[in-house]
């Protein structure tokens, strides 16, 4: 048996970033990862978007905190280049109906203090001359951007490891157990680990693990897919998306474009044990891209992949302590957009462990916010 101040379950970017900030506070941390590979879940499979716009207002404060205070210096902080760019996010529209959708999103975000506004076709073209003439407008958030998820995830891991965090791979956590009324023991197929605090950051698997200590998290898993092209000459640095979610993506430092997208069947895809591409998704993403960035029609795709996202019933994660289970902290249910907020989440998790006030408002991300629809409607009034 090994003991530490904190046991983190899951070595994705959320678990690794939490471990990094905890170790910086001088705590002894063990991270347990089921896979033999660090960061092999969503964290190495995502589109790299570091966005505030397009988010639910409840998670905008943590997104804004990270983009203002953490992302700009993250490469220096961790000692590895995470390829962060802050060149804005364009969410594109081709019809008046699209613009209506975009405006609603932008208005909600502006209301909580984000600089995001609607721009017309001319301004869109000025920002990005490669876009189709069919684009009639967009929402524009100049402080959004993107980073390299492969590098950012491994950078948190490598930096945490340097600070003395013990990462153990191939450890399938099967159970959390209480000792004297507190969550303390973490059981794997090989061993038992004990810690004063337990951070559960195992993506969708967090549901099953939390279930072993009586907590149910209302989430499901969803298969989402991405592609990467060969290197192209530098074209643009913004993150792109569309009102219809036809595709999203950006050009990387390497020159390749990474794009993601959906067919509409994401919720209903089969779990074959490992995430694999469906035959219709990459073609659908390609059509989306060509319709908005015509010049990319001849770009060659070299690789495609799929990953699971942990989708919460109301679209935002739980980042919270569980009152009924002292010692347990939840960080899961990121619903396909947890990469961009990971530095903020890691920071806040380290504060929850040490009983400090979080640096930003996470009151909308509590674990006990789920009510039946009639009760929820009553609360909204």
């Amino acid at each position, binding site marked *: 048996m090994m003991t530490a101040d904190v046991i983190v379950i899951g070595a994705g970017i959320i678990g690794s970033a939490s471990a990094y900030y905890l170790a910086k506070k001088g705590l002894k941390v063990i991270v347990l990862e089921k896979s*033999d*590979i*660090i*960061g*092999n879940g969503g964290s*190495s499979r995502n589109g790299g978007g570091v966005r505030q716009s397009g988010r639910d207002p409840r998670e905008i404060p943590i997104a804004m905190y990270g983009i203002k205070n953490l992302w700009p210096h993250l490469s220096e902080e961790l000692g590895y280049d995470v390829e962060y760019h802050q060149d804005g996010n364009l969410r594109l529209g081709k019809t008046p109906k699209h613009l209506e959708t975009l405006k609603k999103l932008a208005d909600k975000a502006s209301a909580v203090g984000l600089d995001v506004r609607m721009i017309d076709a001319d301004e869109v073209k000025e920002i990005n001359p490669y876009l189709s003439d069919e684009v009639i407008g967009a929402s524009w958030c100049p402080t959004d951007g993107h980073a390299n998820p*492969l*590098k950012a995830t*491994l950078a948190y*891991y*490598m930096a945490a*490891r340097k600070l003395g965090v*013990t*990462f*153990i*791979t*191939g*450890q399938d956590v099967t159970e959390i157990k209480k000792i004297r009324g507190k969550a303390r023991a973490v059981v794997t197929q*090989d*061993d038992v680990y004990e810690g004063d605090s337990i951070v559960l950051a195992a993506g969708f698997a967090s549901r099953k693990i939390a279930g072993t200590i009586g907590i149910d998290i209302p989430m499901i898993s969803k298969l989402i897919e991405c592609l990467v*092209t*060969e290197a192209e000459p530098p074209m643009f640095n913004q993150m792109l998306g569309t009102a219809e979610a036809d595709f999203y993506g950006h050009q990387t430092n*390497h020159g390749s474009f990474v794009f993601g997208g959906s067919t509409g069947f994401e919720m209903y895809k089969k779990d074959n044990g490992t995430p694999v*591409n469906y*035959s*219709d998704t*990459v*073609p659908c993403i*390609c*059509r989306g*891209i*060509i*319709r908005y960035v015509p010049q*990319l*029609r*001849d*770009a*060659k*795709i*070299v*690789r*495609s*992949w799929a990953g699971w996202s942990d989708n919460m019933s109301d679209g935002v994660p739980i980042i919270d302590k569980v009152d009924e289970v002292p010692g347990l902290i939840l960080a899961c249910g990121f619903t396909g957009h947890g990469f961009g907020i990971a530095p903020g989440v890691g920071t806040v998790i380290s504060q929850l462990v040490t009983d400090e006030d979080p640096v930003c408002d996470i009151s909308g991300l509590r674990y006990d916010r789920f009510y039946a629809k009639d009760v929820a409607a009553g609360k909204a009034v």
Partner: protein
Amino acid sequence: MNELSNRSRDIGEFIPQPDDDMIVCRCEEVTKGEIRKAVHEGLWTIAEIRRYLRCGMGLCQGQTCAKLVKGIVARELKVSPALLEPATSRSPMRPVEMHVFAKETEDTDL
């Protein structure tokens, strides 16, 4: 659990070698020294090395260098190469233009 599970296991210091400048992955121009250093930074699987350095992520997708990379990493970790899983191959196996890929159905205007 095996020799690769506890990432704090002591594998010794990084010691420079005369052929560290040798290019191992020709598509992405990754050297032997970069791969050896990455192992000492904690990247102990082929997938991690590949994601961090891009070796095997170029046009040939590692068909030329995969075996070499595996040998270098195994030697650095002092384990059998058999312990290291190769990186996953993924569709399409050869680069394909977007407009070709886009035509999986007749029902499109492209």
